[in-house]
């Protein structure tokens, strides 16, 4: 099967080569047969990558320990569930998995538009094939996942050997999130290839109009949604597994995943300026280019060990390949831009500081400044070594100092932006839209202050969250009121109806609501508490309102590991609440151990208990407990963001249908019944 897999991979490389070279020839000659064959070759590439990936999965399932990659990342006792995850637990497999996910996207694009957009698609096909070609080169010739296990003999040649069992999967990866986090994040990373290909293709082909934007909007949102989920799942994994009580540590690899998310978010917003007003064309094209390059950079940071990180793999030569590829991409983008610069001329100018355009402009500015700050902080060790000779790194204070104010500014814009009119907003409309949200926000601030909240950023954040939340609720309320007057349906049904009529606008609001929830959770960090104590059995440790009573210790034998458990009773105000079982798992196969945090989570706060190990001197177990307020809001907010994105991806219910329905329900038409209905249908407010 390993020969089969690697053969499929080589064939995929050949097909990609044809899709690339033949595609260029097709663009030059415009020969229909050539165009068709290049497209089909692109599809064949994808199919062969599927086959190759599946055969690697098969090697894991069939416990084939003659393949080096399988030996390093699996063993017989590993559960089936984690054998799938073992596919992307190492360098070679991850890169093949990258190709696999990209192939899904590429195949969908080539198939969906096989008989549409004839002018544009040959270019798109060539660009996609180019990207695939790079990853296939790596997987075939630099880091092959199908390499047989060999041992050097005296003459320097390799003898093939097979092992009875593998080394097992790294214990920190043996958690359910690890099975879903990387695919999500990679789907985000790879997904941004599609908008990149369309943007570059439109620029190269001087494709008229804003059609490429309409074409790529849904692909960008899909990639963005996966990226968001991937980041949050990663954060949740770090929280539940690593046992340090937090979920975001500004680690280089975390930062790497945030960078394309920031520019991708900026793009999703600024693209509306181009759609509605024909502005920011250069900016948008470059945002897409940069987002794609940041995705590649993210992969480079994870894979090469350029910056030290808990995630990074051992030093490897793969970094130089990625640097080379980044240079090629940047070169192509620059060349295309300078050649066809005039194609991107703006049709309008900014009119007023208090306008939708201006809010988008500042939204983009904030996201970009955040991106630059995170990027420079992450790469600081590299740059400082180049310029000063000594390697200097920056830590959390650097990132927090810049990003907290930026985050709050962004939150403010989230509330304000969608309610400003295009071009210029009148004072009356400002008053009408922002009177109640401002009053509610300030009231919430005063209340929080009276209850003893003194941390400035947390206080500002709560005020803004209430402000933004109320603007969104107000929007739903206003829209639903109009629908309700006409249809007489319940508030909930009216809200659903409203959302389905303009999925893009109301889906966007739902995403914003999710972001507000995430910010509430982030602000909770200002009130974290922690305690660490050696605890004899039968004694308690106090944290916040809770008393943790260590009842006993026990040991649990599982298939793949042995777990030492603490049995902890949680008491709140002297009343028993529940039992928690923080564990330390010892994996005999690779002599490693991992923590399993026990969390009692409510919307108010998380009680987070870690068994931090046995002190060998005193022979007492150490418990490390945290109270992390509001953390759950982050995860729930994430789910709301995903839901909102899915809503925004649904096609809006056609206006015609709505009008027909309005006419039939308004059997005895009253004048006031029809007019607001038209207000609800007003376009161009998303």
């Amino acid at each position, binding site marked *: 099967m390993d020969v089969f897999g690697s053969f499929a991979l080589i064939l995929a490389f050949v097909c990609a080569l044809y899709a690339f070279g033949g595609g260029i020839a097709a663009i030059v000659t415009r020969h229909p047969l050539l165009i068709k064959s290049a497209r089909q070759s692109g599809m064949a590439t994808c199919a062969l990558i599927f086959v190759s990936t599946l055969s690697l999965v098969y090697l894991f399932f069939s416990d084939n320990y003659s393949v080096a990659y399988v030996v390093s*990342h699996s063993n017989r006792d590993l559960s089936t569930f984690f054998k799938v995850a073992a596919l992307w637990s190492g360098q070679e497999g*991850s890169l093949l998995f990258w190709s696999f996910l990209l192939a899904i996207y590429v195949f969908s694009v080539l198939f969906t538009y096989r008989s549409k957009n004839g002018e544009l698609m040959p270019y798109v096909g060539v660009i996609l094939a180019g990207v695939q070609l790079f990853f296939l080169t790596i997987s075939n010739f630099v880091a092959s996942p199908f390499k047989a296990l060999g041992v050097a003999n005296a003459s320097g040649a390799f003898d093939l050997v097979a092992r009875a069992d593998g*080394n097992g999967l790294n214990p920190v990866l043996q958690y359910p999130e690890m099975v879903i986090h990387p695919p999500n994040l990679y789907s985000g990373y790879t997904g941004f290839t599609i908008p990149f290909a369309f943007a570059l293709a439109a620029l190269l082909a001087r494709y008229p109009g804003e059609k490429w934007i309409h074409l790529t909007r849904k692909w960008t949102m899909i990639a963005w949604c996966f990226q968001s989920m991937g980041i949050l799942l990663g954060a949740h994994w770090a929280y539940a597994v690593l046992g340090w009580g937090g979920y975001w540590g500004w680690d280089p690899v975390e930062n790497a995943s945030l960078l394309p998310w920031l520019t991708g978010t900026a793009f999703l917003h600024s693209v509306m300026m181009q759609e509605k007003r024909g502005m920011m064309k250069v900016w948008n094209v470059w945002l897409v280019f940069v987002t794609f390059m940041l995705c590649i950079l993210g992969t480079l940071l994870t894979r090469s060990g350029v910056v030290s990180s808990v995630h990074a793999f051992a030093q490897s030569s793969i970094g130089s390949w990625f640097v080379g590829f980044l240079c090629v991409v940047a070169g192509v983008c620059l060349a295309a831009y300078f050649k066809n610069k005039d194609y991107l001329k703006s049709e309008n100018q900014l009119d007023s*500081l208090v306008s939708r355009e201006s809010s988008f402009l500042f939204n983009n500015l904030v996201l970009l400044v955040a991106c630059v700050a995170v990027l420079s902080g992450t790469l600081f060790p590299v740059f400082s070594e180049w310029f000063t000779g000594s390697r200097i790194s920056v830590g959390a204070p650097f990132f*927090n*100092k810049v990003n907290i104010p930026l985050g709050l500014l962004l939150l403010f814009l989230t509330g304000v932006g969608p309610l400003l009119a295009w071009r210029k907003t009148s004072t009356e409309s400002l008053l009408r839209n922002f009177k109640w949200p401002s009053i509610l926000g300030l009231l919430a601030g005063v209340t929080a202050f009276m209850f003893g909240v003194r941390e400035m950023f947390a206080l500002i954040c709560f005020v803004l969250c209430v402000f933004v939340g109320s603007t969104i609720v107000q929007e739903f309320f206003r829209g639903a009121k109009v629908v309700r007057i006409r249809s007489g349906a319940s508030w909930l049904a009216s809200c659903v109806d409203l959302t389905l009529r303009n999925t893009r606008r109301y889906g966007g609001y739902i995403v914003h609501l999710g972001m507000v929830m995430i910010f509430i959770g982030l602000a909770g960090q200002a009130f974290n508490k922690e305690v660490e104590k050696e605890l004899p059995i039968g004694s308690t440790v106090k944290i916040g309102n809770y008393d943790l009573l260590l009842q006993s210790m026990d040991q649990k034998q599982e298939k793949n590991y042995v777990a030492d458990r603490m049995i902890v009773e949680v008491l709140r105000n002297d009343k028993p609440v529940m039992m928690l079982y923080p564990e330390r798992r010892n994996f005999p196969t690779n002599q490693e151990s*991992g923590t399993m945090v026990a969390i009692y989570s409510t919307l108010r706060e998380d009680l987070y208990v870690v068994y931090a190990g046995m002190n060998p001197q005193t022979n007492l177990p150490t418990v490390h407990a945290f109270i992390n307020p509001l953390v759950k809001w982050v995860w729930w907010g994430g789910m709301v963001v995903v839901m909102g994105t899915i809503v925004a991806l649904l096609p809006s219910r056609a206006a015609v249908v709505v009008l027909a329905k309005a006419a039939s329900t308004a059997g005895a038409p009253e004048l006031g019944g029809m007019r607001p209905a038209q207000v609800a249908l007003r376009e161009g407010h998303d």
Partner: protein
Amino acid sequence: MKKQAKFGIGIGVIVISMVSLAWLGYGESKTYYHTLAELDTLKGSARTERMRIGGTVQNGSIHRMTGRVDFVLEGEGKSLPVSYVGSDPLPDTFVDNSQALIEGRPAADGRFVAEHIQAKCASKYEAAPGGKLPATPAGT
């Protein structure tokens, strides 16, 4: 032109305040990378800067006390006594002979006071019977 100026001012204010915040954060958290051998050659203020040093944990040198863990870091023929005083629990991979990256400041008495420790188990996938494999620690 006036409108453009307004935007310019807005953008300028944001960018300048962020740059100054970044500068403050940089001053607070900048950390130098040094090797164990370099540590002895540092002079003046460079000796009291925040820094990161990599090395191997000396076999049998880990002593756990309440609120503090002492051990000796070795490398390049040098050894350095370290006291870890950070609040995070030590990583599971922090054991005898593991590779560790310590972060903190040297104290006046020659000990190194570390606030953060990262550790990688060096021996993990190496020299397993039957073949030599590349060391590939934590995943994505």
